[in-house]
């Protein structure tokens, strides 16, 4: 057995295209998932029982079912249920937005609950409404504490996006499969692709560790 990377390097642009799509799905899922997660967290914290019940169910459901099952459901089942043209990209973005929002919701909720009750009191006593307290006093403090958990979750999301290759979205994983078949060099292709993922994720997690250290130094606690 001999390593031969030539074939892979010749088609390296295919892999780069895949990488770009991987980042695109991750970015879009974050774009929708974070606000949705905040909405779910606020709903779950609401004193309105029905609302908090529904939000709680959504969060628990998407945390306890496998992402691949969710992806298949949105890709194969949803278009029949509601008459839409489903593309791999839409299925991927919908799945990972909702799936990660369930996790983000728990991070938001933990962050909000970690803020001292006195902050609510201080804000309420000067006449702030619930929304003003939340926006001006609680969330700015909570979000700072959530950053490490938030970044950890984003990294998990990036890893999970590899699943979109199974519904034929041309992410890095999918391009790897294509290239492996085309070049008959699965060892080199998959090793290179693993290395690309490793570098990407390793850098991102080193960055998140650095941020966490800085936050820890500035005396901010963190929630997980």
């Amino acid at each position, binding site marked *: 057995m001999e390593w031969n990377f030539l074939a892979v390097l010749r088609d390296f642009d295919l892999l780069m295209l895949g990488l770009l799509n991987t980042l695109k799905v991750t970015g879009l899922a974050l774009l929708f998932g974070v606000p949705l997660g905040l909405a779910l967290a606020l709903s779950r914290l609401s004193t309105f029982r029905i609302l908090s019940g529904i939000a709680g169910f959504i969060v628990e459901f998407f945390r306890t079912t496998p992402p691949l099952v969710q992806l298949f459901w949105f890709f194969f089942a949803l278009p029949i249920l509601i008459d839409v043209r489903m593309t791999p990209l839409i299925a991927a973005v919908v799945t990972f937005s909702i799936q990660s929002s369930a996790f983000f919701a728990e991070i938001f909720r933990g962050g909000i609950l970690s803020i*001292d009750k*006195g902050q609510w009191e*201080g804000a*309420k*006593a000067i*006449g702030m409404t619930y929304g003003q307290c939340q926006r001006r006093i609680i969330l700015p*403090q909570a979000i700072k504490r959530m950053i490490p958990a938030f970044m950890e979750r984003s990294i998990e999301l990036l890893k999970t996006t590899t699943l979109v290759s199974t519904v034929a979205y041309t992410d890095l994983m999918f391009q790897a499969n294509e290239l492996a078949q085309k070049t008959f060099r699965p060892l080199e292709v998959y090793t290179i692709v693993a290395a690309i993922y490793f570098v990407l994720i390793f850098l991102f997690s080193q960055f998140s560790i650095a941020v966490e250290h800085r936050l820890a130094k500035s005396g901010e606690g963190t929630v997980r």
Partner: protein
Amino acid sequence: MSEILRIENLHKSFGDLEVLKGIDLAVQAGETVVLLGSSGSGKSTMLRCLNFMETPTEGKIHLNGELIGTERGGRMRYREAELCALRARIGMVFQHFNLFPHMTVLENVMEGQVIVLGRGKPEAQDKAMAQLDRVGLAEKAAEYPARLSGGQKQRVAIARALAMDPEVMLFDEVTSALDPELVGEVLKTIRQLAEDGMTMLCVTHELGFAYHVANRVLFLHEGTILEQGEPQSILKAPATDRMSEFLEGHSLFKLPD
């Protein structure tokens, strides 16, 4: 003198626990009322009912002659917007300051003015600086609360409440969390407010402060006002055994003869 706060038959229960059992009180403009009572007697709950941090179970509260809430079906109903507007008119200072740690001292004092009262930033800043000057902390305006001493934090909290131009101020054991050497500066600030004619209700264990500053002292016991009167008489010659016992427990604070 005009009546600024009127409380009628105030009751408050937490579940089965009845904490306030019918409080009646009228406070005149410019009056300083001190609430005494042992721990758990309902002092905090009473103050918190006045600005509706807790919703009374029963009873009526009038501020400046207006009844707060509307009566329907024999019960009082309160709208959230009405209560927020009310809280903006009543200042409250807490034992643990509750300053906003992510804002500077100046921003702390401007926040309510800008967000709740809708004042413009320049005006809010001028008012904030004036109040910080009043509590002697103008030079700390740019600091974050974490860099202040406990006494300074509490004075900022007082400035934050004053900047809203409140009609009444409520103080809930504002010196209890402070190191003994820092108590004086805060009490001095409150005393100055009293002399400036602010209407105040203070829960405190500082009997010397009650003696010298209060116009009236209330003794709360098990959710009712057991005794009240001028400090010079009630602190020296309490009418009930309960209050005598309470005062003996605080004999550390020597009263002048």
